[in-house]
């Protein structure tokens, strides 16, 4: 598709408008000039007709006979288009007629009411005038009643046409000249007023992953029409920068945290290959490698889950939600951690008070509860009881997971929701977690507009309280 140019379009529009205007003005000017010149021509025509009439007089020998002094007729200005005339007396006797009078054609149009008209004779445009009832000039000398004459006079209109043409030429040349000047000025003005746009584009082109700041040039900032564009670009860039930074941080974190599990897997395989071994040894080594692999997989899964929860909380991810019975998700979570608890003789006690429904994804809720339960089991002594309670109150739902473990030291409390935070070795021994469970839980709970709060003192067990808007 051909590109449209604002500049070209504006230029064409304005020049065409100017051209139409000029043509209109020229029309008017020519019309006025022509009328004016024709009026003057008509007056002159009348004068010439009168001067022909003045050449008619009474004969000296026969005072009743009318004579025409043709010798006094002025020579024609243009021999190819001479003036034409015809003079009749009252009794229709022809008194005078110009030598080249077109007898067949006649001169005056048939309509009697018009005393002046345009006419084409021998292919030359003429204007003709007829005056009737003009008394012979020297009738007083004769005495008695005057004789009356009818005169028809025609002259070529070429002087008028020439003059009009000249006027037209002058106006046209002037107009074209003015059009050219105004077009040039228009191009200059358009370029000048579009310049802030290209400067803005230049500064936008310098945006890169290492430079997120848009510095609109002063001219662009001072241009009213560019304000929405600059504004939109700035806020779009801010959004992009945020998303980009988030992604990059996640990637850096992920790369960093993957180093240890990868180091484990690598060292397992390398130590297996350090010397020839028996089939049983290889088998045991490969099983270890598979274990390492499973941990790596679990970490990857957790990290992606966390990233999704955070993206969703930030509103950059949409998902399908349904009305969920919270008690059902609690039971599912208990089912999930049951085996681990059983191994250590730990009982899980579930107390649902009333029912609670939430607009949520059941998998998310189940994951939050099972993370909290896993932690509680992890920190509980063998054969202890982990309690999970649910109640709703004033439009808010509360789920609480409590254990009788050693509690969390006050100094550690602010850090427990940090990614990859792991508690003291004495408490996490043999648990194999990567410290993402609580970070995921917090991100998910906050995505639903809730809060998660630890209540713990060293030596007195831990309660994790989740509050959700029902």
């Amino acid at each position: 598709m051909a590109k449209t140019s604002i500049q070209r379009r504006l230029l064409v529009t304005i020049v065409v408008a100017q051209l139409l205007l000029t043509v209109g003005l020229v029309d008017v000017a020519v019309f006025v000039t022509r009328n004016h010149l024709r009026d003057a021509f008509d007056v002159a025509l009348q004068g010439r007709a009168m001067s022909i009439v003045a050449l008619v007089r009474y004969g000296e020998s026969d005072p009743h006979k009318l004579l025409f002094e043709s010798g006094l007729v002025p020579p024609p200005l243009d021999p190819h288009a001479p003036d034409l005339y015809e003079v009749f007396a009252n009794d229709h006797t022809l008194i005078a007629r110009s030598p080249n009078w077109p007898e067949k054609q006649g001169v005056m149009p048939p309509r009697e009411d018009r005393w002046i008209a345009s006419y084409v004779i021998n292919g030359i445009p003429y204007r003709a005038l007829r005056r009737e009832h003009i008394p012979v000039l020297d009738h007083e000398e004769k005495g008695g009643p005057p004789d009356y004459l009818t005169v028809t006079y025609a002259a070529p209109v070429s002087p008028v046409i020439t003059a009009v043409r000249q006027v037209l030429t002058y106006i046209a040349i002037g107009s074209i000249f003015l059009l050219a000047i105004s077009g040039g000025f228009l191009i200059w003005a358009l370029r000048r007023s579009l310049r802030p746009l290209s400067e803005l584009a230049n500064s936008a082109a310098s945006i890169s992953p290492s430079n997120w700041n848009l510095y609109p040039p002063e001219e662009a900032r001072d241009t009213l029409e560019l304000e929405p564009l600059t504004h939109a670009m700035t806020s779009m860039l801010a959004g992009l920068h945020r998303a980009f930074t988030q992604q990059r941080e996640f990637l850096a974190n992920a790369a960093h945290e993957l180093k240890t599990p990868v180091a484990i897997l690598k060292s397992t395989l390398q130590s297996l290959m350090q010397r020839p071994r028996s089939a049983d040894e290889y088998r045991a080594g490969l099983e270890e490698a598979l274990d390492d692999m499973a941990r790596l997989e679990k970490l990857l899964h957790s990290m992606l889950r966390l990233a999704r929860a955070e993206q969703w909380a930030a509103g950059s991810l949409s998902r399908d939600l349904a009305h969920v019975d919270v008690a059902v998700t609690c039971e599912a979570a208990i089912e999930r951690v049951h085996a681990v608890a059983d191994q250590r003789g730990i009982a899980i006690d579930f107390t649902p008070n009333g029912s609670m429904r939430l607009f949520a994804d059941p998998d998310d809720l189940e994951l939050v509860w099972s993370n909290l339960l896993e932690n509680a089991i992890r920190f509980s002594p063998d054969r202890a009881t982990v309690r999970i309670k649910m109640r709703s109150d004033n439009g808010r739902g509360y789920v609480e997971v409590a254990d009788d473990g050693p509690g969390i030291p006050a100094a550690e409390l602010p850090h427990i929701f940090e990614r990859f935070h792991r508690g003291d070795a004495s408490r996490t021994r043999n648990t194999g977690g990567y410290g993402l469970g609580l970070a995921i839980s917090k991100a998910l709970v906050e995505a639903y507009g809730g809060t998660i709060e630890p209540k713990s003192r060293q030596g007195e067990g831990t309660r994790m309280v989740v509050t959700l808007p029902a």
Partner: protein
Amino acid sequence: MRVLIVEDERRLAENIARSLRETAGYAVDIAHDGEDGLYMAQTNPYDLLLLDLMLPKIDGLALLKRLRGDGGEVPVMVLTARDEKGSIVALLNAGADDYLAKPFDLGELLARAKALIRRGKGQSDAVLKVGDIEIDTSALAVRRKGELIVLTAMEYRVLEYLAHRPGAVVSKTELLEHLYDFNWERFSNVIEVYISGLRRKLEDSTGSKVIHTLRGQGYMLRA
């Protein structure tokens, strides 16, 4: 040689320990947190310390600073998941002798460990020479006058330890402490067996004495 690994990832510590035991014949102890690690490093004469940075209780950098502050001179190699310039500079300034970024290569770790131990004892060549005896620490091979001498694993370890400090008197306790991990007391009467085995294999062929016994003090390797 006796090495301490301070690393909270059990599997990683086990794998490194197994590799050091199997391929270099080192005695290896493992600590899983900074507190245990510091205590063990201060109470046992290690020839090398492999130190993770992200440790529970006392982190690796603090452990290193305290160890050096108390005058501990054991060579330290740091194992780190961080590899930014700044943290490496801080590590080396705190007294680390070398570092390896995770995930590392076990072969590289072994080679660097051996080099650190040698340098910690004033040697720089991987082949130790005492008179006409050559001990190739990378191939674990011993030659006298170019002739290969076949030793048992424990005989090799005793000889290598003595060869790292030629001309110095090494007590039986020191040998035990450096050749066994923390159960070394159970093995207290076996050193004589290895010494006599070494003497038989090294000295019989030429007649000249290389391992000297200083009664009540210990042993000395000298050409």
